[in-house]
């Protein structure tokens, strides 16, 4: 439960009236003092996230390449150490030209991305043209800034196509909105970045990009306990998005990749003694 001290609302400026011991009836009442409370950046805003305070038990990634954008996600949901599901859909289909990825609070992501979908459709009907990816992501950012400090947990990527091409944005509950070429979000993101950064090139072909996305997610699921299940892959191109893979079991991937290297895959290549 979050303890709300009402005085923390409207943190941008607070004022305190000084209580004077005697009332000077001749002097004008003193103007209220304006005190600006300085915030130490995003870490303080989101309640002090220490380096390993990953609320987002997941791995999602997206990158821009010459054929468009590739999104790859895992499918595990965990409550502490209990695995509640291995079949979650972490890519939310906002509409035929926009996709959002889910990391953090599932309810928050599902609700606000559906809200965004509603807004996009309303705009399309009123204005006769589709909302751009930049505008859609900006709209979501505006919502999340409004709910800053109230405990929303979202680390999502908005990826889509519009008249200016394919674009990828990272949005989170702190109100951050970043446009970029490569993002990975979640507790397994560090492992995925290692693989992604190693082999990423802008001029990957579609097959190479899909393989890279799958490998990066697989490596994250192997090392990170909060990521696992199946890999889902989506491709965004100028005509919208395509679901490339609906669910490749990472267990199969593990043994397939091990076999490619000529190994068994039981993690015991050094053949430690067993008793």
């Amino acid at each position, binding site marked *: 439960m979050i303890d709300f001290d009402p005085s923390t609302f409207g943190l941008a400026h607070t004022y305190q009236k000084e209580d004077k011991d005697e009332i000077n009836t001749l002097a004008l009442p003193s103007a209220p003092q304006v005190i600006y409370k300085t915030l130490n950046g995003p870490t303080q805003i989101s309640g002090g996230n220490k380096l*390993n305070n990953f609320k987002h038990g997941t791995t999602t990634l997206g990158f821009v390449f010459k054929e468009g954008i590739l999104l790859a996600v895992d499918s595990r949901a965990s409550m502490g150490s209990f695995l509640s599901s291995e079949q979650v859909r972490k890519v939310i289909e906002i509409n035929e030209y926009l996709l959002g990825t889910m990391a953090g609070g599932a309810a928050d992501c599902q609700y606000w991305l559906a809200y965004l979908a509603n807004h996009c459709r309303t705009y399309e009907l009123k204005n006769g043209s589709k909302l751009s990816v930049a505008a859609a992501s900006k709209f979501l950012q505006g919502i999340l800034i409004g709910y800053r400090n109230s405990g929303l947990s979202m680390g999502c990527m908005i990826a889509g196509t519009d008249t200016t091409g394919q674009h990828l944005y990272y949005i989170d509950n702190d109100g951050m909105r970043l446009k970029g070429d490569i993002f990975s979000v979640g507790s397994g993101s560090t492992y995925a970045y290692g693989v992604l950064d190693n082999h990423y090139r802008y001029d990957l072909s579609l097959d190479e990009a899909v393989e890279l996305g799958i490998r990066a997610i697989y490596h994250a699921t192997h090392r990170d306990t909060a990521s696992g299940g199946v890999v889902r892959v989506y491709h965004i191109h100028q005509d919208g998005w395509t679901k490339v893979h609906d669910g490749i079991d990472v267990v199969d991937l593990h043994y397939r990749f091990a076999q490619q290297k000529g190994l068994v895959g039981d993690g*015991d290549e050094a053949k430690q003694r*067993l008793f």
Partner: protein
Amino acid sequence: MSGIFEYNGGSIVGMKGKNCIAMACDRRFGQQMSTITTNYQKVFKIQDNILLALSGLNSDIHTFYALMEKEINLYNLKENRKMKPTTFANLVASALYERRFGPFFVTPIVAGLENGKPILATYDSIGCKSDLDDFQVGGTGGNYIYGACEAFFKPDLSPEELEEVIGQSLVSGCDRDSLSGWGGVVYVLTEQKLTVKILKTKQT
């Protein structure tokens, strides 16, 4: 995922069969959400007819095992005979209680065969021995393995059946625990031999 017992993660299970006993463990060694290796040994052969499985903080798993190795070696030298499984079960309880106010963060399971009769004992971290059940579990995935054990277990299983049942229970249980898994090993001890089998499990 706080708590000293959840820091490294891991699960163990022991079962009694007809004149045989089986132990199984996962192979993960991790630090909170990160997996370090997938070949960590958690079941130790103390003697030809005694197995000791340990779950909990990996540092104490290793230390407690080394302590028990030392005890049994000294016993063999001093008494010039092998230790009975029931005696070893008692020794584990005493060794744990010796550290009552600074305990080892482990939950051991001892399994052995005494004159052909299966012995299975489990303890909390300060040495409360419980040796009346046909199967026992330990570790972060313990509760999930309990459910699978209740479903699959029957009394007086043969060694082959027992190996199958305990393997399935371990895998099903570990699949629901994010801190256990990454491989499994099943040990089946009979009067004649000890068979060790590596299970192919989820590596995620």
